[in-house]
Each structure stands twice: as C-alpha cells, then as structure tokens.
C-alpha cells in the first residue's frame, strides 16, 4: 500500500509537470509559435523550474480570511484526487484495489472538488473568489447529472460498477462505437467538471482575476493547480475505461496503450481550450439543463430499451 501511495504521488507530480508543458506546447503550436524552448530539450524542464520557483514562494495568508477553512481548502482539493487512483486499472495487473464499486468511488470523490472550491472561495473573503466559487458550484451540479447518466448507460450494458469488468466487456468492440452520443456527452461534461475552457467560468481569468484561488500563493496555489491537472488525467482515464476499451490494444504493453488513450483524450480537451471561446454563465447552465440532461436521459432510455429487446 505504501508503494502504491508513493507510486501514485510520483505519477500525479510527473503527470502535472508533463501536462503543463504539453498544454503550453499545444497552445503555442496552435498559435504558430514554438512555446517553451529554453530549459531542457524543447523546454521539457521548464515546468520543473517553475515548480521549484513556486515551492520557494512565500505563503501569504491575507488578514481577513477564515483561517481554518482557508488553510484546509487546498488539502481537501488534493486528497480525493489521490483516492481516485485507487481504482484506475492501468493494466490487468496494475491496479491498486479492484473495488466492485470503482466507478461510484471515482464519481463520489471527484464531487468533493466542489466542496473545496466553495471553501476556498468563501474563506478568501474576496468578491472574485466568491463569484468563482458560486459559478463553480452551479456548473458542477449541472454537469454532474449528465455525467452520471451517461456513465449509467455504460453500466447498464455491463451490469457492473467494477472498472475491470467494464474493460473486460469491451473485448469485441469499444463502447465508443456502440455509444457515440454517450461518449460525446461524457467528454463535454468532463471538460466542464474539470473547469476547463470553454467551461472555465469559475476561474475566468479575464473577468474574475483567478476565481476561487485568487488569494492563494506559493504551494497552496500549486496544490489547486496540481489537482486541476490530475483531475484532467482522472476524467480522461475514466473515459478510456468506459469508452475506449481501457488497456486493450495490439503489440504494445497494456499500460502504454492505456496512457496513449488517456493522453489522446487530454489532447482533445486541450484542443477544445484553444479553439472555443468561454461561454457566458447563462449559456452554460442553459446548455446543461436544456441540451445535455435531456440527451443523456434519452440515451439512457434507448440503451435500456435496447438491452431489454436484445
């Protein structure tokens, strides 16, 4: 278990460092520029340097904050993220605990992110932080419903919450072929759940400074940042398990296939960010309640009907 914990923490750190570099490179190449090039090969060590700088920074606690809540929020956003790795099946053998409620555990613990954002926003005693937190909660509640319903349509087909069972059920054909609409809905909801553009209104930098983490500095901000990128990894890993056949692939070892699929989905999410402008708040909520939730329900009903018939 200790080995697993160390492994997860190492994976989380390396993944965040890599994703930040990847994000900057994707952004740069879409804008026809090279991105970070100076530190290491093609700027590969740039984020390491940035992380070291971040760790060396002073932890400023503003006077008027609600101290216990303010100090607890970065920890609460980071801990559930670690728990999520408990059930992610990287390969048939590389899984820490193959729980029979794996997918439920992931959705339950990733919902705690919202609580932490609320704590951070409220305790900061800053109007921008509160705005960011309010928006984040409205958004996450709205988008969690279609997310769960689309996952439910897959679970109906498999008949199990266990992630290894879901992967095992895709030995003939990936579920993305059978459930393309569910995949689309899942990717949209996952983008919104991780507060990524075009659904990044909780931290809309051009209107809310930095949203809920405006008042955080140094490594406390670093934990929010780390959690954001780790959440991206987790939602992509769940998408891989639910729709892209998990570790299944040819020739290459299963872990490599799993990571290739995960990073392909992360690339897709980054591609969204540098293509689409940010939604307005009312558009965002309208989209969730009027389009995503009805579609998710229709998808679930059709799936249930199809399972009953065949």
């Amino acid at each position, binding site marked *: 278990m200790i080995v697993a914990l160390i492994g997860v923490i190492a994976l989380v750190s390396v993944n965040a460092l890599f994703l930040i570099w990847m994000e900057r490179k994707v952004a740069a*190449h879409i804008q*026809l*520029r*090279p991105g970070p*090039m100076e530190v290491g090969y093609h700027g590969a060590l740039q984020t390491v340097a940035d992380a070291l700088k971040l760790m060396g920074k002073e932890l400023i606690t503003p006077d008027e904050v609600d101290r216990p809540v303010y100090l607890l929020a970065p920890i609460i956003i980071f801990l559930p993220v670690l728990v999520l790795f408990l059930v992610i099946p990287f390969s048939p053998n590389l899984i820490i605990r193959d729980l029979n409620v794996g997918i439920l555990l992931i959705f339950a613990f990733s919902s705690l992110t919202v609580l932490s954002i609320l704590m951070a926003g409220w305790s900061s005693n800053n109007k921008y932080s509160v705005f960011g937190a309010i928006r984040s909660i409205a958004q996450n509640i709205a988008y969690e419903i279609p997310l769960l319903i689309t996952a439910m349509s897959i679970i109906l087909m498999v008949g199990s919450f266990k992630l290894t069972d879901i992967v095992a059920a895709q030995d003939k054909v990936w579920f993305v072929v059978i459930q393309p609409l569910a995949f689309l809905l899942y990717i949209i909801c996952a983008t919104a759940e991780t507060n990524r553009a075009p659904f990044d209104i909780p931290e809309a930098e051009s209107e809310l400074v930095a949203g809920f983490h405006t008042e955080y500095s140094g490594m406390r901000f670093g934990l929010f940042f780390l959690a954001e990128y780790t959440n991206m990894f987790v939602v992509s890993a769940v998408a891989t398990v639910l729709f892209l056949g998990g570790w299944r692939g040819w020739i290459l070892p299963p872990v490599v296939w799993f990571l290739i699929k995960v990073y392909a989905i992360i690339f897709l999410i980054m*591609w969204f960010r540098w293509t689409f402008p940010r939604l307005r708040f009312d558009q965002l909520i309208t989209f969730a309640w009027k389009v995503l939730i009805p579609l998710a329900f229709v998808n679930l009903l059709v799936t249930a009907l199809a399972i009953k018939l065949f």
Partner: protein
Amino acid sequence: MVAYFREMFVGLWSLVAGMAVTIRYFVRPIVTVQYPRQKLTMTPKYRGHIELIMDPETNTHRCTACGMCVRTCPSSLITVEGVKVKKKKLPVKHVIDYSYCSLCGLCVEVCPTNALKFSNEYRLAGYQRQDMVIDLMARLDAERATVGLPPLPIPTPESEEETTSAEEKA
C-alpha cells in the same frame, strides 16, 4: 422540436469546423524565431540610422566632408571632420549620436554626393547612452572587411599650411 435539433446540429457542426481550423494551425510550421539566436532579415525599405554608402566601383565612400548634413540636421547630432588631400576633401571622422535622431532623413536628402543611406540596423539596445554614438567610418570599414578589403587608410593632410590657407580662403 425540429428547430431544437437543427440548432443542436448546426451548433455542433460549427464547433467541429472551428476545431478543424485549429488543428490545421497546429500542424503548420511555426512562424516565430528564437530571437537572440535566430534573426529575420530586415526588409530593405527599413529606415534605421544613416550609414555611408560603399560605392561598388571604388569600394569606398563618396563623402567629401562638405558638412551639408551637419548643417541641415535639426538635432545637430552629426559630427564630420575632414582634411584636404590633393585638392580633394576627405572625411576623417563621421560620427552620429543616434539617441537624438528623429529619423527625419534630411541628411540623406541633402547630401550632394549621395553618400548617405538608411541602414537596416534594428537592434538598438544598449547598456549606456554612449552605445548610441555610431562611428560611420568604422561601420564602412566593417563593411569593407566583409568583401575582404583592409580598413580605409586615414587621410593625412599634404601640408599644414595648405589646410589652414584653404580654411582662410573660405
């Protein structure tokens, strides 16, 4: 109902079209350069500070040290010193203080022998004010060095009296 679905599909299609645009840009070669290591060639029309034209026939300048540029410069930033050699006046010093220059170009227009032009120099950062003082004779020597010529010999006056007598006549 039809309008609802049409709006959904039109919206989705516009998103896909937008993503097609960005992925095309993603695979395109980059257009920026890593500045201090790579440089772009400046357009020939760029008007930097002035410099002496190297005459392609004689491989030297055409300046006669007449001082027209010195007198016409609104900021008085040009310094020219000349000596007389074989009834011909030649510059020994042609220095501008570029920090005062407004790039009006009057010196280039007024030059009777067309000895001046605008250079392509755009890297103008310096550590001190003195870095903005540009020796045009030294620049010409540097340009001569690129075609393998030695620096111009410093012209010496034929005799002290002749120089002074020329100045007295003027």
